[in-house]
């Protein structure tokens, strides 16, 4: 594009701004848009900081109370258990994603994988079913509507008031006109995204990588660009303001309100998932084969017993230099965990597959694309929750096996067997509280920015395809305009 054309584009854009500055509707809409974005950024930032702080505190309390336990039988500590809390990622101040929809704390104990408890939504008012005051919702759903209200008439207005043919006759090409109007709308996009970008940059100081921040901001910029293009297309195709408006409103309803829900409904219909309770039956059947780790006489441990006797070259378990009950507990915990993990993995894969199906709808709706992109990049998508589940499982396994090791090495087998005989025997079947130090500090971090960026590639492609198709459409219409 030549310098001449470029300056014409700028003139058109400036002209559009002058029109907005004089239009009450456009100014109201802009003011509302900025107010909503700003307040959502502030409110969500405060909420998520509070949450993060509270969960950090709960986490260290949980760790403290674990190591503060008195001398005990080590297996008691296995059942005393531990709590893990999912602290939100730094960028979740902009998109809390599924944070409120999954439990954010999990009780870890021996022989069991519990599910996460206390999803915030369950304590909610049910008022925010349609939308909440988060920057993600405001920019994904409401910003396009505001852009439509500002821009629906950008070209159809010129046509309706017959200034279009005048402009064209003066040598302004259709393309220049459209590009100029587009530039004006893009500057509005910049205004909307600015608070988001500033808030996102702040998270760099709290440890978020620049890559994630950039992907986040670029993702939203691309998304709103899709809407600018849609608006320009509709405004050039329709000869009347009302036609352009109706069409855009309809498209908005379809893409922003209907499609995300159609996506999730279709996904859960297409890939039915079995609940935890139901798979637990299969898990139990599988576990039953492994034997009860509390019961050393369970026939399932016969072979294990034999191999131990051979290993230590002794004749009976009483002669073992280590605690046989501890060994059985440790052995069965390891085997159980294998089974539990196998089923947990299956469940997560099924959930991921469901989510994947719903994400395919991003090809049909840019809103679905940006929704996935945003949650993935921020680290509040289902993958993050799965990571939380996996990490807490590792934490659980480590401390349980740590306690079992204490059980094996530091507790005499005979004392252990007699633990219920009388109060003194119970006292004797204990180990020192120093052993509780085996618990490792847990600090949940989301996946690295690289992994998150990689996961968001399909969503980026979806947005770019939308842009490519729309630019093609506008070029075609722009030529016809002249």
């Amino acid at each position, binding site marked *: 594009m030549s310098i001449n054309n470029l300056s014409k584009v700028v003139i058109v854009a400036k002209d559009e701004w002058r029109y907005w500055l004089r239009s009450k509707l456009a100014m109201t809409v802009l003011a509302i848009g900025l107010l909503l974005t700003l307040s959502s950024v502030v409110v969500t930032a405060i909420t998520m900081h509070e949450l993060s702080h509270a969960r950090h505190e709960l986490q260290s309390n949980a760790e403290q109370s674990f190591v503060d336990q008195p001398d005990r039988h080590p297996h008691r500590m296995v059942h005393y258990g531990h709590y893990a809390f999912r602290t939100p990622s730094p960028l979740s101040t902009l998109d809390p994603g*599924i944070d409120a929809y999954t439990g954010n704390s999990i009780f870890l104990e021996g022989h069991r994988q519990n599910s996460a408890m206390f999803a915030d939504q369950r*304590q909610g*008012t049910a*008022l925010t079913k349609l939308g909440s005051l988060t920057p993600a919702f405001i920019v994904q759903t409401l910003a396009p509507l505001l852009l439509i209200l500002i821009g629906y008439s950008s070209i159809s207005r010129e046509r309706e008031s017959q200034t279009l043919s005048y402009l064209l006759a003066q040598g302004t090409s259709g393309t220049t006109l459209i590009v100029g109007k587009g530039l004006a709308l893009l500057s509005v996009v910049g205004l909307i995204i600015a608070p988001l970008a500033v808030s996102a940059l702040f998270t760099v100081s709290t440890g978020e990588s620049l890559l994630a921040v950039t992907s986040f901001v670029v993702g939203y910029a691309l998304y709103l660009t899709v809407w600018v293009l849609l608006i320009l297309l509709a405004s050039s195709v329709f000869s009347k303001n009302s036609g352009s408006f109706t069409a855009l409103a*309809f498209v908005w309803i379809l893409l922003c309100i209907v499609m995300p829900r159609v996506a999730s409904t279709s996904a859960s219909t297409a890939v039915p998932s*079995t*609940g935890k309770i139901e798979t637990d039956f299969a898990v139990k059947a599988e576990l039953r084969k492994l034997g009860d780790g509390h019961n050393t006489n369970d026939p399932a441990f016969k072979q294990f017993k034999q191999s131990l006797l051979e290993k230590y070259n002794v004749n009976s378990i009483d002669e073992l230099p280590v605690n046989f009950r501890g060994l059985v507990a440790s052995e069965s915990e390891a085997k159980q965990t294998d089974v539990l993990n196998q089923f947990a993995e299956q469940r997560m894969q099924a959930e991921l597959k469901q989510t994947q199906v719903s994400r395919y709808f991003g090809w049909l709706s840019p809103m679905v694309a940006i929704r996935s992109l945003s949650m993935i990049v921020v680290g509040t*998508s289902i993958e993050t929750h799965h990571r939380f589940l996996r990490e807490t499982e590792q934490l659980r396994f480590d401390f349980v096996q740590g306690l079992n090791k204490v059980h094996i090495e530091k507790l005499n087998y005979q004392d252990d067997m007699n633990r219920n005989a009388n109060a003194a025997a119970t006292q004797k079947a204990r180990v020192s509280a120093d052993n509780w130090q085996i618990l490792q500090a847990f600090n949940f971090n989301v996946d690295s920015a690289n992994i998150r960026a990689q996961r968001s590639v399909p969503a980026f492609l979806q947005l770019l395809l939308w842009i490519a198709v729309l630019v093609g459409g506008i070029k075609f219409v722009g030529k016809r305009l002249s």
Partner: protein
Amino acid sequence: MNYLIKQFTREWGFLLRQKYVVVLLLCSLVLSGFAIYSGLSEVSAQQQTIERLKAADQSDRANVQQKQNDAGMLAYYSFHLTYSQPSNLAFAALGERDIFPWKHRINLLALEGQIYESDAQNAELAQAGKIDFVFVISALAPLVIILLFHDLFVSERTSGRHDLLVTTAKSYFALWGARITVRFVAVIVCLMLPFFVGAFIAGASAFEVGYVSLLCIAYLAFWAVLSVWLGKNATSAPRVASSLIGLWVLFAFIIPILGDLAINKAVHAPNGGDIVLTQREAVNDAWDLPKSTTMNAFIKEYPALAPYVDMSSEFEWKWYYAFQQMGDLKAAELSQAYRDAAAKKYELAGTVSWLSPPLLLQRSLTRVASTDSVAAYNYEQQIRDYHQQLREFYYPWLFYKGDPTKTALKNMPRFESTTQTSK
């Protein structure tokens, strides 16, 4: 009468000739149909899950009962299924069933440690929300109505036909009355027809269907009247539509969001984690407390068992379950406060919903369909009651009757899902 029919047939024919109206109506029909279809399949999936769980639960318990004889072991290893059967109207209002659990398996251990576990569905899908009939009517239908009614007058005015139409029409009603009525009826039929079919398949009662229809029609009439009224004297269709959509955004998003913020500030709820922690500390401390401390507290609740609390060993199941219950007792106050806070929030949300018609409709419909949080709290209470029944069943065997007989096990209390109705 004949005259009326003539007006309606004329306007009906006229409506069918307007392509964008027909497209909008078809879209409404398809969306409503999709919502009803997915609602029906979701409810049927839930019912099938419950049936499968019932069967698996039975055989699992039978298995445990075959292997174990000891009352304590039986109580430890036997899990009991509880569930909340979807109502006949649940297909139209899936409500909160994607967030609140509707199935739970519990054993005799402290309930506070079990009841907050949730067998929730895919959180990312739950966050996006689902399309159900309530969503279509409360959120989408207003937009369809706005698109259909906002330019009823304005489009005639801007194209210069308004005066000719009005002066030609024999009466005001013959023109606008008939036009509005035909459009309204058409949109109602497109939105409600799938619901009627769904209600027939799901076996909802005529009263329920009538009540739901009444609410929906009143709600849609509200939006139609609003659109017509705002559009009556206007000269620019987009301006009318923008103000209407603005109102919709206000009702559907802004008021609920502000209400949510205010309510969450106003109602202080205890942290859920504290309940479980309190219960865990109580249960674990009990191991190291003198047995009499636990038992003395226990017989305050069950004086009838007082003669049987003496222990002959350092570990007895009766003591174990007694301190489990004492753990629940210790957390009871917190747990009640947690539930009270939730109930209070729901109540306040009810007040807020009077400012927002879409919310009001959602609440009313999920209430009749028993899929709201009230229904979820009721289900939680049913679990609590059932857990109490189980305790009362097991305690005599644990304390003095010895191993339960097979006949006794057969007569063990069963969970009865009382289909909740709000009327």
